[in-house]
């Protein structure tokens, strides 16, 4: 079943294009990482999916138009915008009471269980909690909602590494099952690499790259070229070349490992390496032009 389906999804603010006719298809049960530099259109895309902004083109989330059918949609969608949005005056117990009072799919016992694992006191106000505790509270509330789609927009911004790790572990172990879909954006790409099933790069309003993590792991290889073998390595058509400590590192798409091995050290690149290759390219599409044909401008999630 399809969770998110977009055709020609377009959004512009005045003369600046935030989303440039995006096609997107995300199947149910995926954990999709949406990666892009600041101002790439990530938040605009999430806002469109969450019915927080109007758009042109067609967009369906769980079979509904998020802008016109937002009120019904929000019964099935949960999101964490960032850690700072929980109202500071709210008491922890009030927050639980409130969500339990208004949300048809909220499981109070679950929230209590999650909170029992933390040091958060029920009587504390949000303003008295540390940033990490606020994130824990928010996650506890959100994970107790039996949503079909969970959207996380920079949920761990400003948290230390222990909290970040705990956050994603908890998400994966306590929340995710194969009926739910999770859409997450973050700048700490490599930290979420292990939880993702799919990857999507967005740059200047275009989807410049998309693949499943299975594909990612088999397709991309990085070669640290032995001195003197650079011409041979270049002949295999790397998609990116960079210099580190005086050695050339070349990134390949769909070149067999056996072919690369004689030329130097072969390793699996991180998402960040591939991200830089796609988004940091000098010949990337200009903001107002449609994406060039070789780069994938649309993305269809796996497992359909």
């Amino acid at each position, binding site marked *: 079943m399809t969770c998110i389906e977009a055709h020609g999804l377009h959004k512009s603010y005045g003369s600046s294009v935030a989303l440039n006719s995006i096609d997107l298809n995300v199947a149910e049960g995926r954990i999709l990482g949406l990666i892009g530099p600041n101002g790439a259109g990530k938040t605009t895309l999430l806002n469109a999916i*969450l019915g*927080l*902004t*109007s758009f042109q083109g067609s967009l369906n989330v769980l079979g509904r138009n998020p802008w016109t059918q*937002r*009120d019904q949609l*929000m*019964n099935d969608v*949960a*999101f*964490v*915008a*960032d850690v*700072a*949005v*929980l*109202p*500071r*005056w*709210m*008491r922890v117990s*009030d927050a639980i009471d*409130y*969500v339990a*009072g*208004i*949300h*048809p*799919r909220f*499981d109070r016992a*679950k929230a209590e269980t999650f909170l029992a694992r933390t040091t958060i006191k029920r009587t504390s106000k949000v303003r008295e909690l540390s940033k990490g505790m606020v994130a824990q509270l*928010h996650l506890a509330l*959100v994970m107790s909602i*039996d949503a079909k789609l969970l959207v996380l927009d920079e949920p761990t911004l400003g948290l230390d590494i222990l909290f970040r790790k705990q956050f994603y572990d908890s998400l994966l172990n306590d929340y995710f*099952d194969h*009926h*739910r879909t999770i859409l997450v954006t973050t700048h700490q790409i490599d930290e979420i690499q292990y939880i993702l099933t799919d990857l999507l790069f967005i740059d200047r309003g275009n989807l410049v790259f998309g693949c499943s993590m299975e594909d990612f792991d088999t397709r991309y290889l990085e070669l640290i070229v032995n001195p003197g073998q650079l011409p041979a390595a270049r002949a295999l058509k790397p998609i990116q070349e960079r210099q580190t400590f005086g050695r050339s590192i070349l990134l390949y798409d769909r070149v067999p490992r056996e072919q690369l091995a004689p030329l130097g050290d072969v390793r699996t690149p991180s998402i960040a390496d591939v991200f830089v290759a796609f988004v940091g390219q000098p010949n990337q599409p200009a903001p107002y032009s449609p994406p060039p044909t070789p780069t994938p401008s649309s993305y269809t999630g796996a497992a359909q």
Partner: protein
Amino acid sequence: MTPQTDALPTSFSDTARATPAARVPEARRLFWSIRRELWENRSIYLAPLIVAALIILGFFYSTLRMPTGMLITSTVNDNGVVTHTSHGIDPIMPYTIAAGLIMATTFLVAVFYCLDALYGERRDRSILFWKSLPISDLTTVLSKAAIPLVLLPLLTWAITVVTQSIMLLINVTVFHARGIDTGPLHSGLPLTQNSMMLLYHLVAIHALWYAPIWCWFLMVSAWARRTPLLWATLPPLALGVLEMITTHSGHVFEFLKYRIHGPQVSDVATSGMSMPMSISPAQFLSTPGLWTGLALAAVFLAAAVQLRRYRNPL
């Protein structure tokens, strides 16, 4: 989807998905939304309660300390008419002042509440949390409008009645202790009748007549990027000044004065503080200004709902 029968549910979500999600009635969402407003804005009830407590304390102190002569010497003249203001302070006056002070407090609370209601949540970005929950913009705006339109008038009334009752109790006790006749107090203070008049005034003026003002404030608070107080007050005033300069007329000011002052009927005798109560319910309901005001209020509210939908956090 069929419920699992062969094995234990693998997780909570499986069982939940097997049964259709329970619907939350809209009234319940409204109730929780109003409750949430009271959590966030405790001044809604704390401010009038504190003022009431201060009034009672002050009244208790002054009644106790005031020399008997300054109090009330009730004299019954030959015609049997009781006069009780001859030697000192009108005994009714403290009660009227108490009602006025509490009313003024809740009026100010309503002004600042409305101006912040849809602005504060955008400023601190908590709107993103509220919008992540299945509560429509309409329900949210209605719950916020209910504070000045329903809750504050009723609260003002309840607090005033309790305050005045306590004051009367203090008064009667002190008078008894000093051997002063409490008759004039009872005759001058028909508390039940007064409280009904107060309720009428609060509902007619503070809720219904001022509805367009509250809704205008709510709309501005949903729209303004900063200083909603200035955006709510300066443009109407500027418009009035502009009109005076260009056409030398004062329609805008006249209109504003009418909206603030209430439906004053000039040919009805008015007596001091009880100005707005001088108009009968029938007269009030047949005032066209009431209905145009309510129509305006509805327009402002609808605009506030739309603005909340479109406006991004600041």
